[in-house]
């Protein structure tokens, strides 16, 4: 389709042609022509946020929970700079986001014009790619390329910076069918030889493990489906990173729980002792590996990733496989089925016996309290009381995030939205806004901390305005709990600025915002309070008062190996004080 129209009209037309239904944004001078077009149409719903960072995280939540591209629309200068955190977040977690920014008119670029900033310069390092549109003739092509780049290969955020004169100028619109990107064609189908070699290695394994990550989710629901099939076929144990939760059902007996710094004892020890590691869509990040020279020392490693630069970056692997997870899994299943070689059943059974011994250690156990709510208990109750419902969970960053990962079981992909790579406090609330926009009838809960929630609390107004009944479940420990825990571990328990002075009265705040407020400070009242939260048809701020000084265990203190974990029942004050040696201190 080709048609004469203005740049601003092209933006709307391109969004429609790309199948976009909802966008998140905030207006300003340099983007007004596009806002004027939004006003004059009904195809695309615009969700007005309260801060551009919120638009970015909402687009991420939308994308992560649907598998579609999230779209944000902001003005030049401060609008664009406010997006930087969300873009970086999406880059590190490989979330497809298209961010359209207004820019001062082309003849003013470089003049320090009002609300001018070098948006493409600033966002170059925090996007997968970005464009400054210099002429309306380039606009349709760039818009379609932007969607293509954002979602193809390893997904990521892109920015299209559109000067105001380009929005006003008239040109010829071209539809997406007529656009082909010149260079960007990531490989999705892996070399058969490497998949063959992998399957052969797997069939000889005696102590195998699947280590999976966010790449499985990104590859689409089919990948999770195939993963389940392969895991069942092989009978191998499986663990996953924070980003990969939900790709494999947490209720299954082959599931070992999350691995890494706050992962389970059984998954970390199985990683350490394994002889064949099958890494699928994960990237050997430092939260996962711990001490590199002690990382799975006796293992041969298979690494499946769509991004060749993830392979051999931190850990040298034996069989690299570049390809889309779903394609590779399909090949693996086919080859596994047709292969004559099968693993030694006795060896695998012995491996499971060993794993069951580690499981029996009950690494997530904590001492319950009858007079106060333990944070772990709060998550357990939240999980039990929402089981079977159509639930989506987002989180902020801190201890509550790790407890959510440990105690909330995910059965399906795309149900768990968290800021993994960047660890952005303030992610969860706007992300919940985005999720709820995509799933209006589902139960969307942000498991939050009292400090994190203050970072983007203003987005509650967004939820109220757009009738988005998100539930903000705040584990209120009056501290930046994770910071306090590290200060205890590393800095002689000198709690420098980690106490949350002057927290608001969240119930009154909810009232002022036009939401529903709930306060709960006793375990006996918790179930009723959670029931109230899930039944209210409004956005809810739930102030869940939990014990203040609980620590998040198990933990691999930085600089230590997988088999050198700190477990809750061993973590005496002295043990905690000396957990991190001089070497580990410099690490984050």
């Amino acid at each position, binding site marked *: 389709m080709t048609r004469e129209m203005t740049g601003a009209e092209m933006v709307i037309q391109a969004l429609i042609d790309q199948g976009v239904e909802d966008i998140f944004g905030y207006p300003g001078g340099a983007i007004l022509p596009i806002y004027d077009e939004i006003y004059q149409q009904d195809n695309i719903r615009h969700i007005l946020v309260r801060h551009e960072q919120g638009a970015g995280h909402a687009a991420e939540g939308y994308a992560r929970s649907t598998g579609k591209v999230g779209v944000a629309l902001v003005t030049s200068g401060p609008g664009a700079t406010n997006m930087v955190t969300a873009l970086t977040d999406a880059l590190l977690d490989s979330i497809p986001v298209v961010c359209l920014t207004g820019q001062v008119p082309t003849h003013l670029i470089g003049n320090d014009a009002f609300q001018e900033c070098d948006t493409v310069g600033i966002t170059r390092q925090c996007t*997968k790619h970005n464009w400054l549109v210099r002429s309306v003739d380039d606009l349709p092509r760039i818009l379609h390329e932007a969607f293509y*780049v954002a979602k193809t290969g390893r997904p990521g955020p892109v920015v299209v910076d559109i000067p105001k004169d380009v929005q006003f100028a008239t040109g010829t619109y071209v539809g997406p069918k007529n656009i082909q990107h010149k260079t960007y064609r990531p490989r999705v189908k892996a070399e058969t030889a490497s998949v063959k070699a992998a399957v052969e290695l797997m069939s000889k394994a005696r102590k195998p493990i699947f280590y999976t990550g966010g790449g499985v989710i990104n590859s689409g629901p089919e990948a999770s489906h195939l993963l389940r099939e392969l895991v069942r076929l092989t009978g191998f144990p499986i663990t996953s990173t924070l980003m990969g939760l939900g790709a494999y059902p947490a209720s299954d007996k082959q599931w070992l729980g999350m691995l890494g710094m706050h992962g389970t004892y059984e998954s970390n020890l199985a990683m350490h002792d394994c002889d064949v590691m099958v890494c699928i869509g994960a990237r050997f990040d430092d939260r996962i590996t711990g001490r590199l020279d002690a990382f799975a020392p006796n293992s041969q490693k298979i690494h499946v990733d769509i991004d060749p630069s993830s392979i051999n970056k931190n850990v040298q692997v034996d069989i690299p496989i570049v390809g889309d997870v779903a394609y590779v899994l399909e090949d693996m299943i086919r080859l596994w089925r047709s292969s004559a070689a099968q693993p030694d059943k006795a060896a695998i059974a012995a491996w499971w016996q060993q794993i069951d011994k580690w499981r029996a250690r009950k690494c997530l156990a904590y001492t319950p309290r009858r007079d106060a709510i333990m944070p772990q208990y709060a998550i357990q109750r939240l999980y039990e009381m929402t089981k079977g419902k159509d639930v989506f969970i987002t989180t902020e960053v801190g201890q509550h995030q790790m407890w959510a990962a440990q105690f909330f079981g995910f059965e399906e992909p795309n149900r768990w939205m968290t800021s993994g790579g960047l660890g952005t406090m303030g992610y969860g609330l706007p992300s919940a806004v985005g999720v709820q926009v995509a799933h209006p009838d589902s139960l969307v809960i942000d498991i939050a901390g009292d400090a994190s929630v203050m970072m983007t609390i203003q987005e509650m107004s967004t939820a109220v305005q757009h009738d988005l009944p998100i539930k903000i479940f705040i584990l209120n420990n009056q501290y930046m709990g994770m910071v306090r825990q590290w200060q205890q571990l590393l800095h002689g328990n000198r709690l420098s600025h980690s106490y949350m002075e002057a927290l608001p009265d969240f119930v009154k705040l909810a009232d002022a915002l036009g939401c529903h407020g709930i306060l709960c400070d006793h375990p006996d009242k918790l179930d009723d309070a959670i029931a109230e939260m899930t039944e209210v048809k409004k956005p809810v701020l739930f102030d869940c008062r939990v014990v203040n000084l609980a620590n998040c265990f198990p933990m691999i203190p930085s600089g230590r190996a997988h088999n050198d974990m700190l477990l809750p029942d061993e973590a005496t004050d002295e043990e905690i004080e000396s957990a991190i040696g001089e070497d580990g201190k410099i690490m984050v």
Partner: protein
Amino acid sequence: MNQPASAYFLVNRSDEPETHTLSVLVDNEPGVLARVIGLFSGRGYNIESLTVSETEHETHLSRITIVTMGAPMVIEQIKNQLARLVPVHKVVDLTTSGAAIERELAMVKVRGKGDQRVEALRLADAFRARVIDATTESFVFEITGKGDKIDQFVALMQPLGLVEVARTGVAALNRGPEGM
């Protein structure tokens, strides 16, 4: 003291650093050089030399030649990171793909009189450097060759009144009939 190994200590791996020359074919679009340079600075890779110019006008392709140094695993990373930049068409490691030819051009300004001037001219002749500007008390030489040849020439000019040097950085191609 036992060095903790983590992602932060990759540079301390025992692998010996190697020098590699990479040829990178890119779309000649605004910001492409900034992307490449930003990749190197952002990830802490070395740039020993970098040259860039549009080489295929009809298709707007530029060739960037980068000389870099790092352990083999890091060099592998650099290539993969470059290859995943959206406007990058192709990355070829000329160091591993067979003997490559490398050339650099330098202009060398020397100021002097009498014997020094004669000596400078004589050495320039030996290095096949051309005089491209001359006054009664100075020369500008143009010299082409491998980097170490230029280093050597510049070192010899030092005592003879070296004023300044401008170098282009390395351009390189594979030997033989095939292109990259």
